[in-house]
Structures are given as structure tokens and as C-alpha cells.
């Protein structure tokens, strides 16, 4: 039995369709990340799951039971808020214990569980502090501990790391993931940060304009996205427009405005307008050779473990990322280079009706 089953959920506020026919099934102990641009409905969805909002249509089942008529306080779903929402008038300890106290849990048990939480989040020596005395990261840990202390198994995290510095976010997300694993929790984690989702999720759900666009494992949606929007959203992508020139022997030849690419793809017909997607790290660069695609380096950005190159190949720019692992000094601006697009790493899409820019627009 899935931990969470959402069927046909819609939510409208007057004229605004915040959610449209959303269906999703989450298994026990799964860690699911929901990502999408601002306004895509991801926060509305989890607010509906928790009972803070009521869907206009559709059903939500938690552990097989409908929660339509269940109040927030009876749903037993842990919730972590973007603005943390620790009770400012209570100490860390009292915050952690709140969920137990409101259930009239015996004092001894409350104390035991609270101490356990303090140990889990590593804040034993701050139990008497007030929230405003802690750093952002520590506060968020207390908020998580507070939710875990109630014994809930299903957790909804609304941009839990949004209020934190980039570096703290990058560290805390793994701690969060480990906590969920160790305790066997089922988690739905909403974020706008695609790297965050890719690095910790079992499955990623992509939403746009109130709908679920795609669902898959991080590797699936990154390497084999089903839509152009997903392709562009989960990471930087080279989107090259072209036309199918020839289909023969299981190989498809695509004309990218002069340069030809042979791809082992069957689904398209000759003459069709297409868009090729290839990730920057799959574009290999070598000093200029006779064959291959020739271009000039337009911009070089140093990113620590890799160099990001913008190559001008005539009508368009292609972005390539090359690891700085080998001691090569890389290429300089103005240099001529040969590009090699690894054909196995190319994904092909139909050219979108409304145009490419509109299709992948982020806001």
C-alpha cells in the first residue's frame, strides 16, 4: 500500500488554477522531491496534502485512508516550513516537545524522546536557548526534530533549506536525507533548487503551471528527459534546432544548420523539425582538428572543478563544460576548437508548437 496516493487533485482560487488534475503515488520510505519554477503549484500541493488547504477536486489517501474530512491536527503528517516557524516564546527543548505535550504524553516519555531528538540533531547543549539565538541552519534542524518527535512517518518539507546560505544548504541536505533514511521516513520535499533534488531524491517530480510534467529518478530526468522543459529545468542544456535530413539503417541524420549529426534514434521522419538536447559536459573539446565541428571560444568561466566554455559555431553558441581534473590549462578566449557531441548523450525532441523559447521559459 502506498504511503500517499493523490488522484485528480485540482485547486482553484477564483480565476487562478493553482493545481490541475494532479495525480501522484508515493511508496513507503520513498524520498520524493517536487521541483518547478515559482508559481508552479508545488507548495499548494503539499498544503493540500497536509490539510492546510482543501483541494477543489480530487482525492488524497494517506496509508490507504481518505483524508478529505480529516483536520490538520489529525493527519499525523510532519510539516517543515520555509520560514522555519519555531515558536519564539519557547526554548529549543519546549519546541521539540510541543507535539508530545499537546497529546498529553507522560512527562517521562516526553523527556526521553526530546533528549533523543536533541542528540539526533546534535544540539544537546542548546536545549535551553531560544530560537532567535540560533543560526538559520540550527533553527531548521530544530524544526525538523520537532516534527520527527511526533512520531509521524510521512513528512512534507516546504523549501526547508530556502532560508539558508548556499553552503549550509549543500551540507544540510545530505544530513536531512540521512535522517530520513535512518528513521525510515517517507518524505515529500519541495524545492526550487534542481541540484538539491537531483542529489538526494529517489524520485523527482517536475511541475509547471499547476501540472505534473514528468516524474523519474534523478538520472532518468537528467539524462533522458521526456520534455524540453524538463531538459532545460534540471540543468544547463544546449538546445539546438534542426531538421531531419535522412533516416537509414536505424540512424537518423539531423541537419543543425550546416553541421550534420548521426543519431541512433528511430522515432522521427525525414523533414521533421526537431530540437537536439545535449548537456555541456557531453560536449568534448579538442584543439582544432580537420574533422568535427569547428568553433571559436567566446567566453571562459572558471567554476573550480571545471571550466565552462561558450563556443561560437557560427549561428549559435554551444556551451561545454570540461573538468579541470587533468592539469591542462584549458582553452582561452579567441582560440579555435573542435567540438565533438557524444551521440549517445543526445536526446531529440519534436520542435514545440509554441516555439522553443516559450516552451522552456522559467517565469
Amino acid at each position: 500500500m502506498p504511503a500517499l496516493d493523490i488522484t485528480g487533485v485540482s485547486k482553484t482560487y477564483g480565476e487562478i488554477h493553482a493545481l490541475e488534475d494532479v495525480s501522484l503515488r508515493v511508496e513507503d520510505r520513498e524520498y520524493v522531491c517536487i521541483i518547478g519554477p515559482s508559481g508552479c503549484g508545488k507548495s499548494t500541493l503539499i498544503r493540500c496534502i497536509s490539510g492546510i488547504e482543501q483541494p477543489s477536486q480530487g482525492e488524497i489517501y494517506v496509508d490507504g485512508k481518505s483524508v478529505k474530512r480529516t483536520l490538520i491536527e489529525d493527519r499525523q503528517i510532519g510539516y517543515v516550513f520555509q520560514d522555519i516557524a519555531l515558536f519564539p516564546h519557547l526554548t529549543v527543548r519546549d519546541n521539540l516537545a510541543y507535539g508530545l505535550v499537546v497529546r498529553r504524553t507522560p512527562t517521562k516519555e516526553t523527556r526521553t524522546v526530546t533528549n533523543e531528538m536533541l542528540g539526533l540533531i546534535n544540539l544537546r547543549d542548546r536545549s535551553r536557548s531560544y530560537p532567535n539565538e540560533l543560526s538559520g541552519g540550527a533553527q531548521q534542524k530544530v524544526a525538523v526534530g520537532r516534527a520527527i518527535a511526533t512520531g509521524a512517518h510521512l513528512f512534507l518539507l516546504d523549501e526547508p533549506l530556502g532560508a539558508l546560505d548556499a553552503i549550509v544548504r549543500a551540507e544540510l541536505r545530505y544530513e536531512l536525507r540521512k535522517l530520513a533514511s535512518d528513521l525510515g521516513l517517507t518524505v515529500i520535499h519541495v524545492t526550487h533548487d534542481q541540484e538539491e533534488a537531483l542529489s538526494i531524491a529517489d524520485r523527482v517530480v517536475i511541475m509547471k503551471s499547476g501540472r505534473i510534467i514528468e516524474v523519474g529518478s534523478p538520472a532518468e530526468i537528467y539524462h533522458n528527459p521526456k520534455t524540453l522543459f524538463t531538459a532545460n529545468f534540471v540543468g544547463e542544456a544546449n538546445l539546438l534546432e534542426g531538421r531531419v535530413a535522412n533516416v537509414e539503417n536505424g540512424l537518423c541524420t539531423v541537419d543543425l544548420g550546416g553541421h550534420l549529426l548521426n543519431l541512433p534514434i528511430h522515432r522521427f521522419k525525414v523533414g521533421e523539425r526537431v530540437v537536439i538536447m545535449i548537456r555541456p559536459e557531453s560536449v568534448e573539446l579538442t584543439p582544432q582538428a580537420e574533422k568535427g565541428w569547428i568553433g571559436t571560444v567566446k567566453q571562459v568561466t572558471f567554476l573550480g572543478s571545471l571550466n565552462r566554455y561558450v563556443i561560437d559555431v557560427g549561428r549559435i553558441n554551444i556551451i561545454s563544460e570540461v573538468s579541470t581534473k587533468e592539469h591542462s590549462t584549458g582553452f582561452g578566449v579567441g582560440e579555435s576548437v573542435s567540438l565533438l557531441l557524444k551521440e549517445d548523450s543526445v536526446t531529440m525532441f519534436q520542435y514545440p508548437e509554441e516555439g522553443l523559447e516559450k516552451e522552456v521559459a522559467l517565469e
Partner: protein
Amino acid sequence: MISLPSLALSAVTLNSMKRAVTWSFIIGLTVSSLDILAGVPLAWLIVRKRGHWATILDSLADIPFIVPTVALGFSILEFWSSPDGIAQLFGSNNVVPPGVVLIMLLHFAFSYPVIVRVMVGEFLNYRETYEIAARTLGASSFTAVRTVTLPILRPGLLAAFLLALARSLSETGATIVVAGTFENGTVFISNARNSGLTSAVVIASLILILASLAVFSAIKLIAPRIRIAPLKVWPNFERKLSNSPTVAVRNIVSLTIFLAFVLLPCLFIALPAIMAVANGTATEAFAGAGPWKAFWSSMLLSYTIAGLVTVVNIVSGLPLAILVARNRFGSKITKLVDALVDLPIVVPSLALGVSLSFFWRNMGSLPEFWVIVLAHTTITYSYFVRTMTASIQEVQPELEDAAKTLGALPLRTFRKITMPLTKYALLSGAILVFTRSVDETGATSAVSKTLKTAPILLVSWIRGTISVTPSERALGVGFLLVTSFLALVVLRVVAIRKPSRGVG
């Protein structure tokens, strides 16, 4: 040479005074507590219920605040104490005779809107996330509000309580109307003044001022320090309190209390006033016949004073508000200025008036008119500065920072940025000051000897010291009411037209 009145007091007077002052505090503290209990649920209802009804309720809750206290006093007197009031339902002559209980009913009614106003503001600014967080942790609505929302809003509750207390201690005109033979602090002072017992007036005023300061300081210092005891929850019981039927009952009770003890008694005066229009008293009034001549000149006086007071307040209060809002004095001095601005609210206006008149009498030459203007300005100052300070503080300092670095000099920044974003507060602040000045009885009665402002005149009409017919009385009060209602309407319109705040 400063002349001091002889401070001799008879034993009887001394006892009366002690009793009167004590009663002021008993009444004040009781009424304020009851107001909190009754007002908070209504404020909650207004904020949580959204939609048309909530806005209507919000406006209705403002009414006792806008109605001049003299009119209020008279209305309450008629409602509870006269044969024409609700006594008709019970077939008796009166339900509550003039005296301490009637004073409490009066004070309950006019302090009620203070609580509602402050708490509506608090609830609106309150981050509902806290409460939702509590509920996701398993707390029922009632538990969440009791253990999370109210403790967080404690400063607001305290402020509301103290404001209600201040109003109760301070009120003079209406209290005199409903007191009968009973004496609380302000009634005592007023009676003493009329009897020429100057020493009693002075001493009682002093005691009232000092006692008020002491009580307020004590509450302000102690209350925030009371540790919120470790939580105790009774889940099942509180769950029942959270369910729809209970909530419905609670709302009905709140509304009933509001209607029966606040709104109806306040508006009751409209009936005789309308009847007075019907039976022709109005035409006489407009013709300026008989007592009406004095009435209209009193109204003119009141409004002139109010207009001047408003202007003085704006001109002198605005700079101060800016300085306080932007902490220009440095934090220590700003805190002191803050406390000083609050002082006139704390000190009962009558006592303030007495000390002012004493002060000015010895300075000699200032005409009575200007002393009244000064007294009114002192009393209303706090309202204006508070309103403007809060509004300016809401304007993000970043906006001014950005404007500065874009090259705007302070005057330009003020004109183009701060003013447009606070003009609605300016307008509501001005209206508050204006109505408060028109309303003012306490200090005015202490300061004025010959000039009579409209409410003062009306007190004599109601008490019978100037004899008029019941119709004339009702109509006089009615006229005062109408003008204040106009102010309320303008205030509402202004509030609705507020632009959306913030960057986006």
C-alpha cells in the same frame, strides 16, 4: 510669585477622595479585563472570517470609538436607566440606575473598541504559520491559539489592556453623566471643582496622576517577565472547544455581548434624536432659537479648536514621528521619547487639565482659548505620533536607502517616497486627533472657565444645570453624533483606498 492654594482638607473630603480614587482603579482594572475577554474573540472573528460580513463587523466595532463620549454617556444612561430604554421590556423604570454599575457598563462599552482595534491589528500582522505549525504537530485550533498565538501576541494584549485602562481612568464627561451620586476619581475632581474645593482638586489630581504612572509602569515591567509556564494541555477537552458547534456558540456569544452591551447602548441615542427631528425640534435648532444659540457657538468653538489642534499636531508631530521611527536619536533617547509620547495617554486627562490650568494660571497672560488648544494638543499628540511612527516604520528603510544613493536629498525622499506611502496614515491620524479633540471633556472642563465646548455644554444639558427639553437634549447629542459619523465614514473610505504595501 507663584500662588499656591491652601492644601487644607477636611477629614470627610479626604476619605471621599481616597474612596473615589480607589474606585477608579477597581473600575478600570475590572472593565479592562472584561473587555479583553469579550473583545479578543470578536477581533479574532473579524480577522479570520474574511468577506463582507467581516468588514461590516469591523466598522461596527469602531462606532463606540468614534461616538463622542458625552453622547455615549447619555445614550447609555437612556438605554439602561430611563423608562424609555430597555426597561420597557421588563416593565420597570430602569434596569441599572446611575452609579458604579452603570459606570462599568459605560466604560466597558467605550473601551471595547480599543481592544478590538489593537487586536485586529495584531492578528493581521501575526504570522499564521505559527498556528498552522502547531496544528501540524497535533494541536487542535483552540490549543494552538492558547499555547502559541496568544503568548506570542502578549505584548499586543498588554498594550490593548493598558490603553483600555487609560481610557477608563481618564474619562470624565460621560462618567459624570452616568455616575449619579457615586464618585470615582474623575467625578470627584469634577465635583470638587464645582464646589470650589481647589485643594481637593489639586491633591486628587496629583494622586491620580502618580497612581496611574505607578500602575502602568508596574504592569509594563512585570507582565512581560512572567514566564510562560510549562505547557499543560487537555487534548480532548480543547478539541471539543475547537469543533464547529462550539466555535459557532462562541461567535454567537461574542456577537451578542457586542450587540447588547456595546453597540445598542451606544446607538440608542439615535432614536430620541430622530424623534426630535420628527417633532419639529430640528427646525427650532436650525433657527438658532433659545438654547440653540449657545449650542451652535459651542459647536463652532469645538470644531475650530479641533481644526487648530489637528494642524498643530501635524506640523509638530510629523517631524517627531520621523525621528522616532528612524531611530535618529539613538536607541536610549528614542526609548525615552517613546515613553514621553505615551505619557498623555497614561495620565487621566482631567488631572492633566488641572495641572495645565494651574501652570498656565501662574504664567498669567495666555487667553483661555489657547490654553484649551494646548491642552487638547497635549492629549491628542500621542495618537498622532503613534499612528505616524508605526506607518513610517512600515515603509522599508531600504526604500529610503535606495533613494538616497540614487541622489535624492532628504526632502525629496520624504516628499516622493515616504509621504505617498504614509499619506493614509496621516489622514487617519488627523481624523483621530480631530474627533478626539471634539470629544474632549476632562481637560477642557478643568481648564475652561468661561468658554464652553460642545461636549461640555451637552453635559450641562444632560445633567440639568442648563434646563432643556428631553427632545432638545437628544437632538443636541444627535448633532454631535452625526458629525462624528461623518468622520468614521471618511476613515473607512481612506482605509479601503490604501495601496498595497511592499515591493512585490
